[in-house]
């Protein structure tokens, strides 16, 4: 009895400790939100102070930032690029992975190894040649960048789908074929529904990558017409000499807001996506 109450006390202490640590962990975000409501001279002078009547700027930073970066336009492009690319990646790579895992030949084995190899290679290795090639092919619009993402992101997706296919019972597919289903019917009617939870995990990983990606769209897209959120934020610095930190803090807050909403809404999938991605090793 004595032992149990001791343990309870200890657990309460841990809860208290972690509440404090978590509050500290959130300080960077709190500082960002606070500063987004301050006039910009006060941001460098007293970055940790709570806005007072002197320093309070209302929504001015947000207004200015949205004007300078055309933030909501950038958000639209980010959304279109991410949704389209991830949809196309999931559809194409799952088909590709099914073929590779069901047909065992020298050719599919070579293709599979190439996909695995591409996961490891850093972007800087192909940065220059890829952007020149994409430009030459005219893939400089939010639609054009989709095949670029498919090509460069295929490695991880194919690899993970192939891992799941191994565990997938082949007998169901065979019986569907014996019943006279053609391969496309088998894939969309039998295989894809089984793979749905795995597709969600892979989709989450790809969303996290493409939504936050800076360098690839920066080098590929026609920047006069199209900017994604990370590019728009980085552009606050270019051209204006010194950075308007008020507008910057406001735009960072706007950029993080949808991520927090997305995270709280799909936390369960995100965590299982991380777990699935970690097994790849």
């Amino acid at each position, binding site marked *: 009895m004595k032992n149990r109450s001791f343990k309870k006390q200890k657990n309460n202490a841990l809860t208290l400790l972690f509440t404090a640590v978590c509050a500290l962990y959130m300080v960077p975000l709190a500082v960002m939100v606070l500063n987004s409501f301050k006039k910009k001279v006060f941001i460098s002078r007293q970055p940790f102070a709570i806005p007072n009547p002197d320093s309070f700027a209302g929504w001015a930073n947000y207004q200015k930032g949205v004007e300078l970066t055309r933030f909501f336009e950038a958000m639209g492009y980010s959304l279109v690029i991410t949704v389209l690319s991830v949809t196309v990646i999931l559809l194409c790579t799952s088909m590709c992975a099914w073929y590779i895992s069901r047909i065992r030949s020298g050719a599919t084995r070579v293709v599979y190894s190439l996909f695995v190899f591409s996961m490891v290679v850093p*972007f800087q290795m192909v940065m220059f040649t890829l952007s020149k090639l994409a430009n030459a092919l005219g893939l400089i619009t939010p639609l054009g960048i989709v095949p670029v993402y498919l090509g*460069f992101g295929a490695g991880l997706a194919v690899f993970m789908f192939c891992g799941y296919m191994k565990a997938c019972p082949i007998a169901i597919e065979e019986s569907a074929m014996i019943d006279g289903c053609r391969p496309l019917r088998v894939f969309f009617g039998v295989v894809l529904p089984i793979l749905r939870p795995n597709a969600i995990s892979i989709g989450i990983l790809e969303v996290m990558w493409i939504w936050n990606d800076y360098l690839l769209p920066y080098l590929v897209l026609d920047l006069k017409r199209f900017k994604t959120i990370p590019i728009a934020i980085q552009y606050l610095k270019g051209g204006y000499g010194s950075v308007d930190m008020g507008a910057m803090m406001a735009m960072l807050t706007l950029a993080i807001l949808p991520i927090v909403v997305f995270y709280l809404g799909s936390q369960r999938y995100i965590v299982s996506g991380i777990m699935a991605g970690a097994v790849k090793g």
Partner: protein
Amino acid sequence: MERYIKGYWPIFLLPTLIPFLMAFVVPFAMGLYLSLCDFTTVSNAVFVGFGNYIKAFSEGAAGFVHALWFTGLFALLSTVLINLLGLTLALLLVRGFRGTSLFRTVFFMPNLIGGIVLGWLWQVLLNGLLAKAGLTLVSNEWYGFWGLLAVMLWQQAGYMMIIYISGLQSIPDELMEAASMDGAGRWQTLIRIKLPMLMPSVTICTFLSLTNGFKLFDQNLALTNGMPGNRSQLLALNIYQTFYGRIGWEGAGQAKAVVFCAIVVAIALLQLRLTHEREVQQ
């Protein structure tokens, strides 16, 4: 079964394979070849042999060699710190006191924020702190170094925590019971049972944080942009600025990229071997 599907390769394979060739295989092969050439665009390349590699390695004080060891040191330190923090959080947060799932949510959250956003966010924070001592992040390269380390620690510890937690949860209960029956203390259980059983997670996390450290770009660009005088540049940023910041250095930039790629691939192969050795032991 195979003969039913085999003829369908244009439908199943080509939609992925053609973009893959365009976005990876061809640029990769061209990149390898161009690292041995003199060029300003892809079409005017002239073969020159290993000149670019020599040029890359004999760059001045804040050049490739500096970025190489600066990045190596950064990747190593960040790997150690991120994993220590991640593992500590995991060990504490599997103990089932009130609020653990909320705490996990909080620690993981920074992971979803992109590198550019993170870099600017921390620039204000760290400059605000350093200003009290009359310094800034770019006073010398070590402020940038430690700043970047703080950013990565904040961002990635939660990710590793998630992986370690699932590793800890997969340790069979019987093993823990047997240990406590035999009178093992807390430390003994940790060193003799939990850590050995966690080795697969440790391998994965070490590999992830090591390659993340080596490939880091966005945070570096937004936090210090390599200042002062390119001295806080990590490899990826150094390669980027060699390509796009200096005329006539494209060849050297591509040569650097090949070296960079070789290092990352070598780390991956090492990790693969370590994983296999463990599998044999079990």
